[in-house]
């Protein structure tokens, strides 16, 4: 059995940042599908191991996207990234939402990778 590369759906409308995050993820053995809007992300939600999405996106928000994914039965863990330091939102971290983790921008790459590894290992076959 060959080891499958894990797949990340990254929803981020700031192009250079999306490219950098993809590159960092690639270095850790992830394939990344980048979408710049929530609507586009819904087209690529099949067979992903984790969803990383910005909160503020053109069109539907990151939170709306995650809710839509859950309605479609996508159970992959979701990491919400936000530039807004809203303590209410950050406390969503503890559950109660469809979001599994909230990270504040600017993202520290090591922290991001630690969260991604943690979430992926928690749900090894979430969506396959």
């Amino acid at each position, binding site marked *: 059995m060959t080891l499958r590369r894990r797949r990340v759906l990254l929803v981020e409308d*700031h192009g*250079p*940042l999306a490219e*950098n*995050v993809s*590159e*960092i993820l690639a*270095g850790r053995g992830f394939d990344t599908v980048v979408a710049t809007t929530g609507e586009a992300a819904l087209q690529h939600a099949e067979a992903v191991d984790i969803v990383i999405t910005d909160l*503020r996106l053109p069109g539907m928000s990151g939170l709306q996207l995650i809710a839509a994914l859950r309605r479609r039965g996508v159970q992959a863990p979701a990491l919400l990234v936000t*530039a*807004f*330091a*809203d303590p209410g939102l950050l406390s969503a971290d503890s559950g109660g939402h469809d979001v599994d983790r909230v990270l504040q*921008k*600017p*993202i*520290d*790459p*090591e922290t991001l990778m630690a969260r991604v590894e943690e979430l992926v290992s928690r749900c090894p076959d979430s969506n396959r």
Partner: protein
Amino acid sequence: MVSAAALDASFAGAPRMGTRMTPDQFASIKRYVGFDAASSELLRRLAPVAEPKLEQIVFDFYETIRAHPEAAAAIAGGAAQVARLRLSLARWLREVLSGPHDANYLESHARIGRVHVRIDLPQEFMFTAMNRIRAHLTAIVEDHEAYDPRTRRLMKNAVDQVLDLELAIMLDTYRADLVDKIRARERLATIGQLAATVAHELRNPLGTIESSLFLVRQRLDRLDVTDGVLEKHYDRIRGQVQECSATIQSLLDLARERPVTARATAACDLLNRVVGPLAPPAGVTVEVDAPEDLILEVDPDQLAKALDNLVRNALEAVRDRGRVRLAASRQGADAVLEVIDDGPGIEPEARRRIFDALFTTRAAGTGLGLPLARRISEAHGGTLDVIPSERGAHFRMVLPERAGPVAPTAGATEP
């Protein structure tokens, strides 16, 4: 919430929004109510006749307020505050009668309107309170047997005129101060929103720089490159990016108006928490002076932020040599927090504008620290002012009773 624009519109006839009545305008109102030198003279004659009864008038005045829950709510300081207010009312009454009713009179009596804004006294109580005083003074004139009917009529007329003047001054100041207060709040909110937008927009480019640095680091390690110049610039970029992130964080803090989560907080703990992380130069002493039993009912995080802004300003003012003092004390029912330095002080012109958002006298200041500190103080029902001082700068935050020491009975509500 009334907007400043709506308030402006409702005072369409008054062109001086946010500015105080000038001596010329005072003279014009005097002419309007018919107050002249003869009125002043009549009141001066009434002064010694009224003097023995002033104490009773003042007593009755505050008993009436105390009996009225809504008006009494404005006097949160309890017996100590009422005692102070009684003294000021007696002084005010003496000045109303003795005059001289000149520009200084206008200035000193305008302050009373300002106090009413500060304590949020409902405006309608100014009218009823003034009527109460009017009834008392009229009764004194009527009961004084030495006056002939004509003098009595003229004197009652003068009392009416001077109290109308008082109302005009009070309402004018009340309006001007309220407009200022609302404008300052709206200005801060607008700036906060702008700051949040800018901060948000900068976070993505900063995140990109930071993640690029991460990838550069990985690449350098993989290629086994060690180069002192590269390392130096790598660290420099990283340090500067972190500095930018910290600035953005403080902008976002300003933009977010957080509700006050008050809890019992020892004043000395609060002040020490502010002073703890500071690293003043060797020639600067930072002193904390707070009684150990002074407990404040405040949001410690927000108040620490406000005090931190004040202390950092003070440290910047004294530079390499000087003294910064943080003091907490109880004055009557109020808790008073002060930050005092012996730096160059604040120019009078700057003193007037120092709490305006974006106003700064420093090359590197954002002009957001003091308005934020004042907003935090006001969110606690308190005030923050700069006190004129001979030397250095003196900031004084007054927090009313509910932010003051928790009485043992009130302490029973604590878990």
